């Protein structure tokens, strides 16, 4: 395993190629707010934890801001991290500047500071290694590994002349190659926007990444995209990641690619998996799975594995405005907990045993395996509970809890999550999400097929399920949407804002 960790890299190129990459100069481009600095932070933390030493260069950050960025680091790790702001370093002497050939005293001083820091760390490791105790001698063959971060190049261009920055980067690249270190250099903007600079530096970078940011309803979706990698031909790949409240990056696909879960024992597969019906298995478990599936019968295959397909009716709910920056995290958590608690106390939830619950962060999806009436019934009960709850809340202080609900039916696959639990995923659940996304606070929206089957099932629904009309959702799909409401008892009789537009 390399000492310097590149977050998300194994998802893009595979575990084997990621582990082979021992040193590289990486360019990371991203629009403002894409998460460049947090990506640097993640890479620094993981690399430090893996035994590397890191130098973080940021020309726009004060020492206090830097300390705040790494406030949760252990003392041992922080000793192996050096912060430099080229704008604030003491300028180098004229002689020193001439010797570096950069032509800027501060950039020359920064380069010298990098060199000095590395020399200091190297001599410290050498001294330790030449000591007499057993523990030290065990590391004799290990050279220290370094990672250098420049965050960001774009900001350096605002403080220093472009050709001097380029010379600085060029000199630094030689140092990095000599040390067999890894460097991450960030830039604001995109590949096309940075074309001129990139042409000048193209021979330096081994790997080029771009963070893409997309808005999906009220959420931001970030992807790390591999633009190019020397010696790897064209590897157009991307991996989605999220930023946790504590600033940590979470790569969705990384955990999947790293850890295939055995379809039988549900444990991670550390060796090469064997596949059966597109499911990964430990090599000694695939036949046992096949035997069990054969013996128990296909109808009960979900008892032993994840390949079952089932039809269910889905209830999708989320808290409206939970990601509002004005809302404190404590308040957000209160709202999620209140919603969970209310749903947990609804009769329909309590009395239905054959259901699957998928938490979604700001809400949940519940699949009811048997009755198509259950999702709407749960929606009505939840609204009644909310009414009581909100009688003690205020919109002004952010305590008012507003939810939107989408209801649909369809097929889903039974899949295994990383906690070895059986979960569901598929068109049925996605459909319910799309329906919910159309609504505003207070809406209980139903997809056409499920609403129509309820209307024919029982006359009581005729007074509460009302046709809104056709709505085009993602990918041009047109769905018929109904809204369930009854006076001020439940639902929202207003036309959803998205429907109007």
């Amino acid at each position, binding site marked *: 395993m390399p000492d310097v960790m590149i977050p998300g890299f194994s998802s893009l190129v595979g575990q084997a190629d990621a582990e082979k990459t021992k040193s590289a100069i990486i360019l990371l481009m991203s629009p403002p707010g894409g998460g460049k600095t947090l990506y640097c932070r993640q890479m620094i933390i993981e690399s430090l934890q893996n035994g590397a030493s890191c130098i973080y260069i940021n020309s726009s950050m004060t020492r206090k801001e830097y300390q705040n960025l790494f406030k949760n680091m252990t003392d041992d790790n922080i000793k192996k991290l050096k912060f430099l702001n080229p704008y604030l370093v003491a300028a180098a002497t004229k002689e020193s500047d001439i010797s570096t050939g950069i032509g800027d005293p501060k950039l020359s001083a920064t380069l010298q500071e990098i060199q000095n820091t590395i020399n200091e760390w190297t001599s410290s490791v050498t001294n330790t290694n030449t000591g007499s105790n057993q523990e030290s001698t065990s590391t004799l063959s290990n050279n220290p590994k370094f990672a250098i971060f420049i965050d960001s190049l774009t900001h350096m261009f605002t403080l220093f002349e472009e050709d001097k920055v380029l010379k600085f980067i060029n000199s630094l690249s030689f140092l990095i190659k000599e040390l067999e270190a890894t460097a991450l250099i960030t830039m604001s903007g995109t590949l096309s926007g940075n074309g001129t600079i990139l042409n000048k530096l193209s021979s330096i970078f081994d790997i080029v990444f771009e963070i893409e940011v997309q808005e999906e309803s009220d959420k931001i979706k970030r992807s790390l995209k591999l633009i190019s990698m020397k010696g790897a031909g064209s590897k157009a790949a991307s991996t989605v990641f999220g930023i946790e409240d504590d600033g940590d990056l979470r790569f969705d696909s990384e955990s999947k690619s790293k850890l295939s879960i055995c379809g039988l024992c549900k444990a991670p597969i550390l060796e090469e998996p064997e596949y059966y019906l597109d499911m990964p298995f430990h090599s000694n478990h695939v*036949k046992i799975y096949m*035997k069990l599936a054969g*013996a128990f019968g296909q109808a009960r295959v979900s*008892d032993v594995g994840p390949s079952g397909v089932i039809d269910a009716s889905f209830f999708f709910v989320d808290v409206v405005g939970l990601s509002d920056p004005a809302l404190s995290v404590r308040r957000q958590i209160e709202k999620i907990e209140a919603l969970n608690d209310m749903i947990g106390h609804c009769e329909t939830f309590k009395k239905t045993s054959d259901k699957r619950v998928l938490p979604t962060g700001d809400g949940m999806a519940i699949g009811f395996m048997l009755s198509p009436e259950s999702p709407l019934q749960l929606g009505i009960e939840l609204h009644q509970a909310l009414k009581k709850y909100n009688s003690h809340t205020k919109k002004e202080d952010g305590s008012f809890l507003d939810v939107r609900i989408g209801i649909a039916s369809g097929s889903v696959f039974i899949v295994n999550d990383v906690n070895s639990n059986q979960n569901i995923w598929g068109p049925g659940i996605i459909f319910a999400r799309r329906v919910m996304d159309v609504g505003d606070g207070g809406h209980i929206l139903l997809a056409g097929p499920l609403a129509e089957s309820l209307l024919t099932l029982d006359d009581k629904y005729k007074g509460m399920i009302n046709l809104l009309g056709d709505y085009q959702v993602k990918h041009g799909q047109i769905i018929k949407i109904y809204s369930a409401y009854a006076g001020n008892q439940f639902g929202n009789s207003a036309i959803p804002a998205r429907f109007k537009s």
Partner: protein
Amino acid sequence: MTKCVAFHSYKGGTGKSTISSNLSASLARKGFTAVLLDLDVYAPSLQDYFQWQPKKSINDYLFENANVDEVIQDLTGVLNKFPPTDGCQADSKGKLLVGFSSTSKDEIYKLDGAVRQEGSKIQLLRKFLMLREEIVSRYNADFIIIDTSPGIRYWSINSLAIADTIFLSLKLDGIDLKGTRLLAKEIYESLTKLGTKSYLLLNRAAGYCLPPSMTGESTASTQELYNTTIGNQSTVISKLNEDIGMDTILSIPCYCDIQFDSNEFLTALKYPDHPFAAKIAVLIDKLKEI
């Protein structure tokens, strides 16, 4: 390489526990490491058979309350109760290791209840697979002999799925024959096509008792009945073999001295000259060839 053999049957009382225990002890006596697992989880009997009360059971292992070393008991010392005779040489390298199921009513209910919940069922299956793998790796077992629950039940199917070889023991009564055909069609077919070897093991077959002509009690009718029964038995077995595509690995007659011995315990070692011991020896030879 470890051979994993499961004893199964349609009905209870076909001699699974007796034969599997005698087989395991005889294998140990011959120098093999035999691990006997009581997976008749709903009606465990090996604690009573070996007169052994383990501190930890397979149930504890499945629920992560014990590790494999706590569950697998070394009962090799039991073999010393039966000194080897000239005709039955002992190999001191052999080991008899036994994993017992809990006989506690609460534990049986707990296990039964847990397999009705999807999450815990998967955990239990995972631990069950680990049990086999740990036995193979930690004890370098030559044989794992599983005494399963009769019929089509969750733990018996799991046991059959992890076994390389299945011995389906049966008596030759009508219900057992019908049930055996059902098992062969519903369960065994899917296992054997994936490489599991399965054999019929006839227990309590006719033929041990002396024919009426030799006991001096012969009448024309009793002798005829005896001859008819023996003849029918052969026909029934041949037809069964043909119908379900399973060979008979062994036919053990109805030894009434064993059947009516309320303290039967490792007869194959205790009475090495008994024909039952010879049958077990044949079974071992055949098992080694599979």
